[in-house]
């Protein structure tokens, strides 16, 4: 099967891009792993009640999902992408069967993942990310029972605290880890506060709501550890301790780059957001001519910005595929770009306020597990680096880090930072893992059933004997 545009991911960027692409007449397929549209930010949005504790920002995803359902595109939920080739063939799995779709142009809209938070005890049952707790609330109306401690920093931490409080399960405390210097650093960007006021007021509103619910916020917390034998029962930090049944960690989000790395697109190290991101032009065009990226997968800017970058990428795809001219693309893009500038206005301030501290990037204690799948510790990574391992890919051979089921999705940023620290080099020089297919587990049976376009013909052409 061949289409004009294949979009990967049905979050805000993917949904908005798909709707506009269909409107412009592009033959479009949208593949997504989940059963329903929304991505992570608007997960399970179609089942949300108007009075959901998740709040109005979550409900903002409803019209996007409704527009997607009403548009004439080939939307494929519950479909995993397990391989992609640079020429434009997507290898998919759905219901235990593998198939391929070839597209003249590809838009990757795979969003963000939470930054790993490698503290002592982060592998204990009961220690999760704040985002994971939010997913359970979105998809199954579940709240953690017992004493919940939230720790870390970033807008999502406060949002989850407020949502849990509204759902009747307020956390016993928020331990904010933003180094106090961050406040001074962020203050230099005070001119951004006015253009970014909508987001700013939303954040301030959340903080006052949390305080109103009686949740204490402790600032400048350092040295957090999760303690417990079979599961977490205590959270300790420098100068304090709390009994806890759950510890929810969050140190911000970073682009999900598994697919863009596998395609060997050009990436850059973002010195402010402290993460890798694909190098993009202002339309989301990557270093491969037929591949673009929209949404947080191209750099963290939030859901509203993702909708806008999704639309810009759809306009550019329409030009590229000959459905509209450059004049129409540019004139349609003008109001989108103006809105994008407003959405991004507060970013420089937020990025500095919530810049992770050094201990999040390079854990101090040698016995902390870095690679959860293969149980490789900080100390093992350091020893291998001192023995001469130059980067994450070579470290696989030394330690097996990044070679478990998650394929380095979690430990990638940590391993690079630890090696960079040992060698005294910038992370940009150290690089990161090169992920390979299959991105998702697929059975041998599904693989064997796969019809690969052109393969049968090629086999017939081959001389035998």
């Amino acid at each position, binding site marked *: 099967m061949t289409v004009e545009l294949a979009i990967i991911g049905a979050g805000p960027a993917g949904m908005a891009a798909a709707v506009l692409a269909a409107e412009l007449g592009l033959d479009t397929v949208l593949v997504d*792993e*989940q*059963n329903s549209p929304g991505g*992570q930010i608007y*997960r399970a949005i179609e089942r949300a009640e108007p009075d959901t504790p998740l709040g109005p920002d979550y409900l903002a995803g409803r019209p996007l999902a409704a527009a997607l359902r009403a548009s004439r595109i080939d939307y494929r939920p519950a479909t995993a992408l397990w391989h992609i080739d640079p020429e434009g063939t997507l290898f998919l799995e759905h219901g*235990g069967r593998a198939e391929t779709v070839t597209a003249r142009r590809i838009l990757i809209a795979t969003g963000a*993942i*939470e930054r790993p938070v490698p503290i002592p005890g982060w592998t204990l049952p009961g220690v999760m990310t704040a*985002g*994971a707790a939010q*997913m*359970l609330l979105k*998809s199954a109306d579940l709240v953690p029972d017992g004493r919940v401690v939230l720790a870390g920093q970033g807008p999502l931490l406060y949002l989850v605290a407020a949502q849990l409080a509204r759902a009747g399960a307020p956390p016993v405390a928020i331990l904010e880890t933003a180094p106090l210097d961050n406040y001074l650093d962020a203050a230099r960007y005070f001119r951004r506060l006015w253009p970014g006021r909508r987001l700013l007021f939303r954040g301030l509103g959340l903080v006052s709501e949390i305080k109103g619910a009686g949740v204490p916020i402790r600032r400048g917390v350092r040295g957090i550890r999760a303690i417990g034998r079979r599961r977490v029962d205590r959270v300790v930090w420098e100068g304090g301790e709390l009994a806890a049944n759950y510890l929810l960690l969050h140190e911000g989000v970073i682009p*999900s780059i598994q697919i863009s790395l596998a395609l060997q697109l050009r990436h850059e190290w973002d010195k402010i957001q402290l993460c890798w991101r694909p190098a993009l032009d202002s339309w989301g065009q990557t270093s491969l001519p037929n591949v673009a990226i929209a949404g947080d997968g191209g750099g963290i800017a939030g859901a509203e910005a993702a909708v806008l970058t999704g639309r810009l990428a759809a306009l550019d795809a329409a030009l590229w595929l000959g459905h509209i001219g450059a004049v129409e693309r540019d004139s349609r893009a003008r109001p989108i770009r103006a809105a994008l500038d407003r959405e991004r206005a507060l970013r420089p301030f937020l990025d500095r306020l919530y810049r992770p501290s050094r201990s999040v990037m390079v854990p101090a204690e040698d016995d902390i597990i870095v690679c*959860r*799948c293969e149980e490789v510790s900080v100390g093992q990574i350091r020893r291998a680096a001192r023995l001469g391992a130059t980067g994450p890919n070579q470290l696989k051979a030394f330690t097996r880090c990044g070679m*478990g*089921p*998650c394929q380095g*999705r*979690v430990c990638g940023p940590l391993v690079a930072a630890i090696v960079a620290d040992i060698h005294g080099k910038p992370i940009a020089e150290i690089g990161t893992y090169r992920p390979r297919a299959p991105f*998702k*587990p697929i*059975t041998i049976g599904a693989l064997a059933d796969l019809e690969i376009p052109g393969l049968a013909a090629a086999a017939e052409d081959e001389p035998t004997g």
Partner: protein
Amino acid sequence: MMGVCFDCLAEIDDVANCQSCMIEVQEGMRIRRQIGARQIHPAAG
């Protein structure tokens, strides 16, 4: 809970290495914990 960490791999209806956080529970589903790497079972039938 979004398919990133693979810490939740489980055996669902005799298929090992399923990302359980990505699969919606159904009536009659057989779910077993998977500790460590998957075992290869002889095919039934």
